[in-house]
């Protein structure tokens, strides 16, 4: 892997699922989005590599993980959420509220329309 690729460091995250040619693989689009956001935040210096690796490891080694590791990116997102709250970029409550708001927005959006946060009926 070329050092200029955005994923050069993050692709070294512990346990990251990879293809035979060494690229990360994602089961669903949101996993790639979470990966990409983490890459950008790290590139911007929002957190260091060791801070990231520690946050991710903390989630990966929690009890109750699925045997087939299909929850790897659930852990990834939990680690990212934890880091951004620990760094006071946002609060746990704000993040939780916004998560529910996006779910309501999706359910309130008719087919064929873009899902926008403003579509949340009780926002």
């Amino acid at each position: 892997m070329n050092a200029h690729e955005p994923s050069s460091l993050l692709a070294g995250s512990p346990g990251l699922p990879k293809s035979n040619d060494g690229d990360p693989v994602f089961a669903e689009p949101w996993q790639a989005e979470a990966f990409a956001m983490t890459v950008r935040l790290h590139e911007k210096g929002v957190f260091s590599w060791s801070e990231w690796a520690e946050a991710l490891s903390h989630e990966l080694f929690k009890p109750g993980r699925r045997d087939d590791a299909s929850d790897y990116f659930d852990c990834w997102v939990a680690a990212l959420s934890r880091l951004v709250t620990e760094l006071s970029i946002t609060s746990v409550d704000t993040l939780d509220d916004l998560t529910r708001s996006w779910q309501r927005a999706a359910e309130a959006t008719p087919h064929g329309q873009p899902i926008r946060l403003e579509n949340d009926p009780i926002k």
Partner: protein
Amino acid sequence: MTSHDHDHDHHDGHHHDNHFSDMQARVKALETILTQKGLIDPAAIDAIVETYETKIGPRNGAAVVAKAWSEPDFADWLQRDATAAIASLGYMGRQGEHMRAVFNTPETHNLIVCTLCSCYPWAVLGLPPVWYKAPPYRSRAVIDPRGVLAEFGLTLPDKQKIRVWDSTAELRYIVIPERPAGTDGLDQSALADLVTRDSMIGTGLAKAGAGAA
């Protein structure tokens, strides 16, 4: 455009056109906050995701196309009942959505629109291209499909008709591209490598076989 006389809600009456899983919603929430704080730019995120386009999801539509090219009986079944034919390979839609396969021929090229919501069957087709989500694309693709395709580098013969299929909440489409020339000796796995995401939404053709001139 087809008339939309499809069956409605056969399940529980609580059907929503769109739904975000907990994880999808959490990722959207993070994206919203980080964008508001000026820490990320959604376009930059899309650009990174695009580089992994071929690494996302099972993209099992390519195997469906390769099997249809190789096995006339399967192609017939796909044409009659794509939902069942695709399910027979073990590929189930996430929300049990119905699939319809539309076959390209020398006379007719098919193009699928609709990725504005969460109904795009990415597990079959692969990740949609970023530009596909731009609202103007959908309307322009309906009004001037030949012009839009030309912009994407796909110039079709004037005599080839273009049919545009608009996905509904209950019915999703897959384009079965024409089998490229010079691929007679290839097995299904080699054929599947020729089937691009773009060829399954109709904005491209299958890749030429290595044996083709």
